[in-house]
């Protein structure tokens, strides 16, 4: 029988059961789960927008610090362009060093964003709802920073346009057989695709921001929301477009890091020339990416007071995801290592001997950060839900995965076919400055971004909350979920 209209309240006004025991269960559910803790959309809007317009002294100090580091990076880059790549530590055998490792690293941390928002969306995982945008933002800026590195890396930056397929009267085209060209295509496709995907999901939030702001902000948000009114037809189209883009972006995401890995594995350099590099790099990218998302979640939650949105359950879920990725990464790493070790080819042995010899401190630090710590701690729910612990683990994984890339790129190159040309590599100040400066630049972009764009996808949160329902089964209250597709 249909209930009369009068008794159907809004979804955030859940009736409290008379039974004290059941009422406790409902209360417990609200505390634990964001999806069960429904509040009026207006309240959530205010919660999101309130901190967006606040910039305390600590914000400005952090901004100045990151800005100074970015400035140092730009200065180092300018000096490098002016005086030539001679100021770096690269040599005639190790022609690729941290700049290429940075490219791999920054594209890597950009992978989790798409995975969380696209793959988890298609799998209908509710825990991605409040964190999807924070993750996508890393994708956006991670890719932007990554795209800097081929430019920083080349010898003649002023001739870079030769690499692009620009029509010219001499009909000189880029070389389509070059893995660098594939990589460039993959990165641009991914950058465009993920920006589009992010923007589509942002439209309702821009409209929300437009309706709650005045002055220039209102004008900017009004333009960005593309005249969104929130009609049924608009929501329906948003749903369709988001689903299509989710399916499209996932293969692109895989192609990007496979493309990056092919830069290495298509070369005949021992230590690079390995068919496992494609999937290995994709897993490695997700691994460092998810760790980076956890770091950003902690910082955003702390500094923007989004404790309501990012709860223990989200850190728990991300921690489990990170544990799965730890195991996958270990599997790939040792599959590659053991194949080389068993193959017993002199050069691959030489590379392994170097990792356990002169480069041993870095190698073992990498194993400690990537294997020992995550595997030893993430199985515990107490660790997964403790923010300081997750922060430290996240930082360690960043360090570990960065070292792993440097070891693959520069470590392998220092051992090559003719032993006369074995040269070890030591980074010089430009590489260090540029690497740290780019990280600061990423942070700077992110900080500024959080003050202009709602970093919580509010509409996704209340969409999820509206679909939740508590039902009574015997003496228990269970939450159920309505699928409206």
């Amino acid at each position, binding site marked *: 029988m249909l209930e009369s209209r009068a008794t159907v309240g809004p979804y955030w006004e859940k009736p409290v059961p008379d039974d004290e025991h059941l009422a406790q269960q409902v209360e417990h559910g609200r505390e634990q789960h964001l999806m069960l803790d429904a509040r009026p959309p207006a309240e959530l809007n205010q919660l999101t927008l309130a901190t967006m317009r606040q910039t305390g002294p600590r914000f400005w100090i952090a901004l100045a610090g990151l800005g100074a580091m970015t400035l140092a990076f730009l200065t180092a880059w300018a000096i490098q362009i002016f*005086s*030539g*790549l*001679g100021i770096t*530590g*690269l*040599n*005639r*055998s*190790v*022609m*690729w060093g941290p700049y290429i490792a940075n490219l791999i690293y920054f594209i890597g941390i950009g992978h989790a964003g798409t995975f969380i928002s696209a793959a988890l969306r298609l799998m209908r995982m509710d825990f991605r709802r409040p964190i999807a945008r924070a993750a996508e933002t890393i994708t956006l800026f991670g890719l932007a920073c990554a795209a800097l590195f*081929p430019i920083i*890396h*080349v*010898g*003649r930056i002023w*001739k*870079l346009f*030769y*690499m692009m397929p620009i029509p010219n009267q001499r009909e*000189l085209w*880029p*070389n389509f*057989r*070059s*893995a*660098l*060209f594939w990589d*460039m295509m993959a990165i641009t496709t991914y950058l465009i695709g993920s920006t589009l995907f992010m923007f589509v999901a942002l439209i309702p939030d821009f409209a929300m921001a437009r309706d709650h702001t005045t002055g220039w902000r209102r004008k900017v948000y009004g333009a960005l929301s593309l005249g969104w009114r929130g009609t049924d037809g608009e929501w329906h189209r948003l749903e369709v477009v988001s689903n299509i883009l989710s399916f499209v972006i996932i293969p692109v995401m895989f192609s990007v890091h496979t493309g990056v890995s092919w*830069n290495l594995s*298509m*070369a*005949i*350099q021992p230590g690079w020339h390995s068919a496992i590099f494609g999937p290995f790099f994709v897993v490695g990218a997700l691994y460092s990416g998810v760790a980076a998302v956890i770091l950003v979640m902690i910082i955003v939650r702390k500094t923007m007071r989004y404790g309501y949105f990012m709860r223990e359950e989200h850190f728990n879920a991300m921690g489990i995801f990170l544990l799965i990725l730890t195991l996958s990464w270990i599997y790939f790493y040792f599959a590659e290592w053991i194949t080389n070790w068993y193959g017993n080819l002199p050069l691959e042995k030489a590379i392994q001997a170097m990792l356990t010899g002169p480069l041993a401190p870095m190698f073992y630090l990498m194993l400690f950060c990537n294997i020992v710590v995550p595997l030893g701690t993430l199985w515990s729910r107490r660790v997964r839900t403790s923010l300081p612990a997750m922060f430290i683990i996240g930082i360690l994984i960043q360090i570990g995965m960065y070292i792993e890339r440097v070891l693959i790129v520069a470590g392998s*190159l220092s051992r*090559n*076919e*003719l*032993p*006369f*040309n074995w*040269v*070890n590599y030591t980074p010089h100040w430009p590489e260090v400055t540029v690497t740290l400066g780019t990280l600061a630049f990423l942070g700077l972009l992110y900080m500024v971004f959080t003050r202009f764009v709602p970093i919580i996808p509010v509409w996704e949160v209340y969409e999820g909350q509206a679909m939740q329902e508590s039902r009574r089964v015997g003496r228990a209250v269970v939450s159920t979920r309505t699928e409206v597709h």
Partner: protein
Amino acid sequence: MAEERNNGHKWTMIVDLDKCTGCQACVVACHAENNVPISSEDEVIRGRANHWIRIERYWEGEYPNVKARFLPVFCQQCGNAPCEPVCPVYASYHSTEENVNIQVYNRCVGTRYCGNNCPYRTRLFNFWAPRFDEPLEQQLNPDVTVRSPGVMEKCTFCIQRIRRGREQANIEGRPLEDGEIVPACAQACPTDALIFGDKWNEHSRVAQMVPSERQFKLLENLGTEPAVYYLKGGETHVGE
């Protein structure tokens, strides 16, 4: 793509290791002929020794029964060159006329991918603007570009001499003779350990010397099809 026989020349070098004394005259001649900048001592320690041809010295045995072996290594002008497909801008491409590997300096953007993919490590990167100590700047060869910083360079088999020889023969309306074109390194070699010629000219000295029992190619297992043939030296051919 591997080379196919065409109407061009197949420029080939033979390095007779039995004759090589490791005197480095070829290295000096190459620097003078091709305007190769001289690296400072610090740069060499940093692993940036800049030579288009280098003598790799390997020690064999334990002291006091130790032997030095010399291996002159320069661009092998591979018929199936690993450096060519990886260049995103075709700065490294294959000449079908001379059948050597050409580096186009003004097309190069300096991704250094070719350098990583060269198993012989004969490709060099210009880390700094070229600098020649006095009075070396007075003797730069006008036939050869001085490369700008940020580009890759490598041995060209003295392509300027090849072109000049061919044009001279053309003017005189006669076919090119064997031995007419000699790269600087081969010209300077006091023991005649470096022999240069067109392998597709059946009467050339190179074509006759290649089918030797002592012949091998450097890193032949990689399938790069080098145009440089080495003849084994030392005791390796005792008992032939």
